[in-house]
C-alpha cells in the first residue's frame, strides 16, 4: 500500500512519491498512475477537513513535498451508492493554487474517492477545464521541440448529435484534431504516446479535458515537469481569470467569450445555445430575451452561483457574475458553452466608458 510504502519517508520528495506510485501501480496491476490537477482555494488541511464529513472520511499525513491522503466514501442513507470504497492518494503542489491528487488505484476507486471528494469540496476546489485548442497548442509546442504525439484512442463529444464517441485508431495528433474540428466535435479524453524523432517513446499517457492525467510508462520528469506543469499553467490562468468575479454593489466584473465564427443571432442558433446550457448538470437557465440578442440567467445549484449571460454580437458573449460566483461554477459554465455549443476563448472584459458618438455616430460634443 502507498501509505505503508511511504511511511518512513520524512521528509519525502515529489520524486519519491511518483516512484512509489509507479511501484504500487505495478504491484496492484492497475498499470496506470492517475493524476488530477485541480484548483484548491484553501490549504490542504482545510480541504481534508472539508472532505471528512457527509459521504466522505479522510485523513492525511504531511510528508515534506507531498501529503499522504486516505479517502473513504461511505454509503449515505437515501443514496444509490451503497458500496464503501477507499483509496490512498498523494497530494502535491504543482503551481500556485494548483494541486495534484494522484494514485495508482483503479479507475473506479479514483472516480469515487478522488473525483468525488473534489466535487464535494467545491467551491473550495474546482476542476480545470482544458479546451481542445489548448491541448492541441500544447502538443504543437512539443512538436516544435521534436516530441510528436501519436493518439492511440480518444473520445469526443459531437455537438451536432449530442453523442459521445469512442475511437480507437493510431493517428498523428494533428489528423485527429483536424477530424474533430471538421465533425463539430470536442475532445473529451485521449490516450497517446509522446515520441522523439526516432520513435522512442518518452511518455505513454492519457489526458482528459478535465485535466485528468494518466501515466502508463516513460519519463517521470517529463510527466511532472512538462505535462502536469503545462496543465497546471492552464489552471493558474483560469484561476486568476475566474477568481473574485462576484458583483459588489453595482460594480460588475464581466468576462468575454469570443467564438471562432458567427454562431449566434439566428433563432435556431440561439435555441442551440440555450439547449447547451440547459443540459449542464445541476444547473438552471431562465431566458429573459431569446431573439435576436440573447440574455439569460444561469444558476449553478451546487453552490448557488449565478451569472447573467448575454450576446453582444454574433460571435461574442458576455458573462456577468452575480453576487455569488465561484471559480468552480464559472468553470462549469465555461465548459458547458465551450464543449456543448462552440469553441470559444475566455478573457477579462474591462468596463468601457462610452461617449455620445457611440450612441449617435455623427454627434460631436
Amino acid at each position, binding site marked *: 500500500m502507498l501509505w505503508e510504502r511511504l511511511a518512513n519517508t520524512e521528509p519525502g520528495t515529489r520524486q519519491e512519491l511518483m516512484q512509489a506510485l509507479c511501484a504500487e501501480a505495478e504491484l496492484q496491476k492497475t498499470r496506470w498512475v492517475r493524476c488530477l490537477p485541480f484548483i484548491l482555494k484553501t490549504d490542504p488541511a482545510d480541504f481534508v477537513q472539508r472532505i471528512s464529513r457527509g459521504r466522505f472520511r479522510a485523513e492525511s499525513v504531511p510528508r515534506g513535498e507531498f501529503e499522504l491522503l486516505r479517502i473513504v466514501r461511505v454509503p449515505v442513507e437515501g443514496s444509490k451508492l451503497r458500496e464503501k470504497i477507499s483509496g490512498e492518494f498523494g497530494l502535491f503542489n504543482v503551481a500556485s493554487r494548483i494541486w495534484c491528487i494522484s494514485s495508482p488505484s483503479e479507475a473506479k476507486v479514483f472516480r469515487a474517492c478522488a473525483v468525488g471528494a473534489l466535487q*464535494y469540496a467545491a467551491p473550495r476546489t474546482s476542476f480545470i477545464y482544458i479546451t481542445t485548442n489548448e491541448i492541441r497548442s500544447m502538443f504543437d509546442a512539443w512538436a516544435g521541440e521534436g516530441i510528436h504525439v501519436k493518439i492511440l484512442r480518444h473520445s469526443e463529444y459531437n455537438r451536432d448529435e449530442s453523442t459521445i464517441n469512442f475511437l480507437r485508431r493510431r493517428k498523428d495528433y494533428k489528423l485527429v484534431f483536424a477530424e474533430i474540428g471538421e465533425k463539430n466535435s470536442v475532445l473529451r479524453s485521449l490516450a497517446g504516446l509522446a515520441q522523439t524523432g526516432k520513435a522512442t517513446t518518452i511518455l505513454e499517457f492519457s489526458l482528459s479535458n478535465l485535466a485528468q492525467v494518466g501515466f502508463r510508462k516513460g519519463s517521470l520528469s517529463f510527466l511532472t515537469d512538462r505535462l502536469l506543469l503545462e496543465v497546471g499553467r492552464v489552471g493558474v490562468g483560469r484561476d486568476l481569470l475566474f477568481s473574485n468575479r462576484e458583483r459588489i454593489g*453595482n460594480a460588475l466584473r464581466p468576462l468575454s467569450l469570443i467564438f471562432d465564427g458567427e454562431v449566434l443571432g439566428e433563432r435556431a442558433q440561439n435555441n442551440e445555445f440555450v439547449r447547451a446550457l*440547459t443540459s449542464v448538470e445541476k444547473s438552471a437557465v431562465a*431566458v429573459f430575451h431569446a431573439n435576436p440578442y440573447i440574455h439569460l440567467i444561469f444558476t449553478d445549484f451546487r453552490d448557488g452561483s449565478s451569472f447573467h449571460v448575454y450576446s*453582444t454580437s454574433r460571435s461574442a458573449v458576455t458573462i*456577468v457574475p452575480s453576487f455569488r460566483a465561484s471559480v468552480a461554477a464559472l468553470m462549469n459554465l465555461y465548459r458547458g458553452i465551450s464543449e456543448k455549443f462552440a469553441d470559444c476563448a475566455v478573457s477579462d472584459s474591462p468596463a468601457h466608458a462610452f461617449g455620445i458618438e457611440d*450612441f449617435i455616430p455623427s*454627434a460631436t460634443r
Partner: protein
Amino acid sequence: MKDPRDELEERHLKRFSDYDQTVDVVSCWQSFTEFALRGATFYRFGRFRTDDEKDLTPDFAIAQDAHLGKKAGMGSLVCDVKKIPDPFADEAEGSSGSSAEIFSKTVESISKYGRTLRYVSDLGPPKVQFVDHDVVLMVPSEAVDSVYNHLRHNLNKKTFDVGRPLVLVEYVYSQSDRLERYVFRWKQGESNSTFSNDVLRKQMVQKAQPVRIFPAHFIPYKIRHVVCNDDPPEIYLLVFLWIEVFIKFLKEDDFEVWKLSPTNRIIEIQLTPAEIIEKLREDYSAPLTSEQIRMALDTLCQLKKARRREGSKDAYVINFSNLAGRAFEDEADQVGLPKRTEFREYGRLFARLLARKELKEKKASAPTWRKRGRKRGQPPRDTHTLRLPFP
C-alpha cells in the same frame, strides 16, 4: 383547436417578454443618460407626487442639474414606454372595451405627467421638482403612426401638449448590418413637440439622427436592476425570485444536500416578505412592494412550491429545489421530448405551472354534473331543476 393550456402558457410568456422589453428600453435610456447627457440624473425607480397628492410612477425620468429641493433644469423629461395596445390595460383598469378604447386609454394615460411633479422616494436621486419638463411617450415603430394620428385628432393643438410639451418617440430593435441594437427616433411630423433638452433636440430633431443603443451599452443596467418602475408581471417576478434571489438565502452547508443527491430534492427556506424586499432593495435597488412580494409568495403556495409557516403571520416556507426538467414528470407521456427540453428553461416552466393552476381553478369554479351528485351511468337531470350556486 389549440390546447387551452398552451394558450394560457403563451399569454404568460408574452407578458414576460413585453415587460422585459420595457426593462430594456428603460435600461437603454439609463445608459444613454449616464454616458451621453452631461449633468443629467436618471430616475429609474420611485414615485412622483402631483400637487393634489396623487402618486405617479412613470417608466423613468431624467433631471437636468438635479439639486435637492430645487426645480429640475430645462431639458428634463418624464417618460412612459407603451406597448400598443397595452397587454395589461384591461387587467389594470379592471375594465374591458373595444381595442380602440383600450388604445385611446393607453395613449391618453400619458397626459397625467403634464403637470408639476415632485420626486418623493428615498431611493438615492435628489428629490427635485419637475416643472419645466417634457413628457415623452415611447412606442414601438409599428404603432407610431396610429399613435401620432390619434394624438393629432384628440389633442386639438398645433403641437402636442398635455400641460407640458409631449414628445413622441418611436423605437425598434434593429438587426440591420448584423449589428443588433435598439434604435430610437423622434417621430417626424409637424405636430410632434421638439425636445427642450439641447442634446436630444439637436441630434434627434434638427439633425434627424437616431439614437442607437447596443446590448453592450444597456444590458449592464438591466442586470443591475432587473425590473423597472412598472409592476413586474407575476411570471417575471417568480422566475427571477426562484432562479436568482431565493438561492442566495442558502448558506454553504445547505448545498451539501444537492452535492449528494439530485437538485430536485427540496430544501426548505423560511422567509418573510420583508427579508425578500430588503434583499431586492440592497442588491438590485429594486423597490418592490410588500404587496407584490406577498402576491408572488401566495402564488407559489397555490403552485405547491411554498406554504405559510404555521404559527406565523408573516413567514413563508419555500419548497426550494431545481425545477428544471422535473416539474412535469407526471406529464411525461403527454409531453413530447422537445417540450420536455423546453421545460428545463424557467420562463417556459413557470408559464406552464401558472397555466396549469389557472385551468385547475377554472375547472373547480365551473359547475359539473359530478358535483351535483350525478352518478356515473345516470342520465343528467334536467338543468332547470338544478340548484344554482347563487340566488
